[in-house]
């Protein structure tokens, strides 16, 4: 009887051990889904792009100034899509970086506690607005407004899409920058105030330089956001590829082109189908570059304090 009792307990312990291992393995698999997603993205983009680049030389893709894959005389130059992406992003960043930085400095160094408590959730809400809503706003409110100032502005244009996208990105820039500034140790601020510095001097000469790499990371994450933004541009900037550096013109971005193709009915495996993966690969590489740079900067900032 006692022997039985012991072996019974041992058996239960072993069972519990096996159970624990199974659960750990299941949780491990859940964690691996994120790796699998990345691997999936890379594989799918590479596989379809590989087929694409067998038919279109990489050199043509990078240098041709026409992007007309759906025409009978198809040309596959990414430059027009790239120019649309870069111009709209530039307009957006011209709005988001100054305003985002000023808001971050203001909230971190100037604003009274109560205002900060209200402003931060509000900015978060601003970041939660669906981009299609911003697209509607850009096309049907901002563009008509801009046309009163510039009468010859076309209905689709990079300017209004870029401006609205800039407002959309402000919360990203301001919240990451503000986090970086608030992480600057109070001792540095006290050191500056003890020397008789004003708030503005302390913010500009001590806090901002100390938080520099964190703020730079915020900018870069903002750039990555702008480059990858889709709906505002698809709605308000048009879907016509156009190699231009003028924000007053309509032009498709890489993302808008993918939307345009997806809206149509392209047969699986056709070259038209593969173009969106080649375009997507270009986009993914660009954002990957910015993300890696941004995270490296953030990491450096964390190490400093």
């Amino acid at each position, binding site marked *: 009887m006692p022997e039985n009792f012991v072996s019974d307990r041992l058996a239960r312990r072993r069972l519990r051990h096996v159970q624990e291992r199974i659960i750990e393995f299941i949780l491990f698999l859940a964690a691996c889904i994120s790796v699998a997603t990345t691997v999936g993205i890379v594989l799918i983009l590479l596989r379809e792009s590989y087929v694409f680049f067998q038919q279109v030389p990489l050199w043509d893709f990078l240098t041709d100034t026409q992007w007309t894959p759906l025409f009978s005389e198809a040309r596959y130059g990414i430059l027009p899509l790239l120019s649309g992406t870069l111009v709209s992003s530039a307009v957006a960043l011209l709005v988001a970086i100054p305003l985002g930085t000023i808001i971050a400095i203001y909230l971190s160094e100037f604003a009274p*506690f109560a205002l900060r408590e209200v402003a931060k959730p509000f900015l978060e809400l601003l970041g939660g607005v669906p981009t299609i809503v911003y697209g509607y706003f850009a096309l049907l409110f901002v563009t008509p407004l801009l046309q009163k100032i510039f009468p010859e502005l076309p209905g689709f244009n990079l300017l209004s899409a870029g401006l609205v996208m800039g407002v959309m990105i402000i919360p990203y820039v301001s919240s990451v920058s503000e986090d970086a500034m608030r992480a600057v*140790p109070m*001792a*540095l*601020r*006290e*050191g*500056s*105030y*003890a*020397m*008789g*510095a*004003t708030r503005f*001097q302390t913010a500009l*000469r*001590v806090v901002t*330089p*100390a938080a*520099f790499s964190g703020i730079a990371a915020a900018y870069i994450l903002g750039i990555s956001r702008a480059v990858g933004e889709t709906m505002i541009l698809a709605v308000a900037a048009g879907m016509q590829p156009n190699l231009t550096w003028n924000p007053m013109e309509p032009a498709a971005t890489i993302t808008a082109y993918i939307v345009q193709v997806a809206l149509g009915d392209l047969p699986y495996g056709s070259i038209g189908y593969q173009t969106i993966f080649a375009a997507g690969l270009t986009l993914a590489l660009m954002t990957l570059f910015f993300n890696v740079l941004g995270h490296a900067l953030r990491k450096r900032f964390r190490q*400093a304090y």
Partner: protein
Amino acid sequence: MVGTTAPEVSAAAAAGPAPVKKSESRNLNFFYGQFQALKDISMPIYEKKVTALIGPSGCGKSTFMRCFNRMHDLYPGNRYEGQIMLYPDNTDLLNRDVDPIEVRMRISMVFQKPNPFPKSIYENVAYGLRVRGHTRRALVDDKVEEALRSAALWDEVKGRLGDLAFNLSGGQQQRLCIARALATDPEILLFDEPTSALDPIATASIEQLIADLKEKVTILIVTHNMQQAARVSDYTAYMYLGELIEFDVTDTIFIKPKNKQTEDYITGRFG
């Protein structure tokens, strides 16, 4: 103007030329929100002397010191009552009409942990001058060198003024912070436990520096280390639970304190 409420220093110790008051707190109360951290403190600070504040941790010595440059104004909910007079112009530092920035331009501070800015050695020392709008290169150069010499750091850094201040050792960083505080010719220099984050050798060099500096400037130092107070100061104040228990010439405090509480603390029976 003679402080009527300030405790008088024992006559025997005041041999030599009579000390001149540089500053004086009068019936100072201080509140963190509802909590009263300082209770009715009155004591003088003598010109070109070192005054030490000692007492167990939490006794309010740092809080008291930070009243002198209105550091408490940085945080909401803090409140002063009473006066801190600055002589010879009879300015009440705590007066609402006196801008805390004005106070801080006249009274510099060195903190517990070295807190150099993320800038070059040169720009760290020049910070106070920049804040005051000085841009003339020659003048700033001279002031930086003079301050670094006074802080006994010049010989160690003169060849690398452009290096980032973070690359200096802890003791060097603290001397850099002293140079930063000296560069603007303050009337009073506040030291808030300046050696608590440093090793014994660096501590010795800072103590030597304080002894040298009192030729030029009035010094108020907070220290948790009684030996340090005995070594560097001319006057010592013992505080406990936000009250000033005893203020006197340092030798008197350490050899024959009048108050039983002070004696217990000095002799290590308490604290």
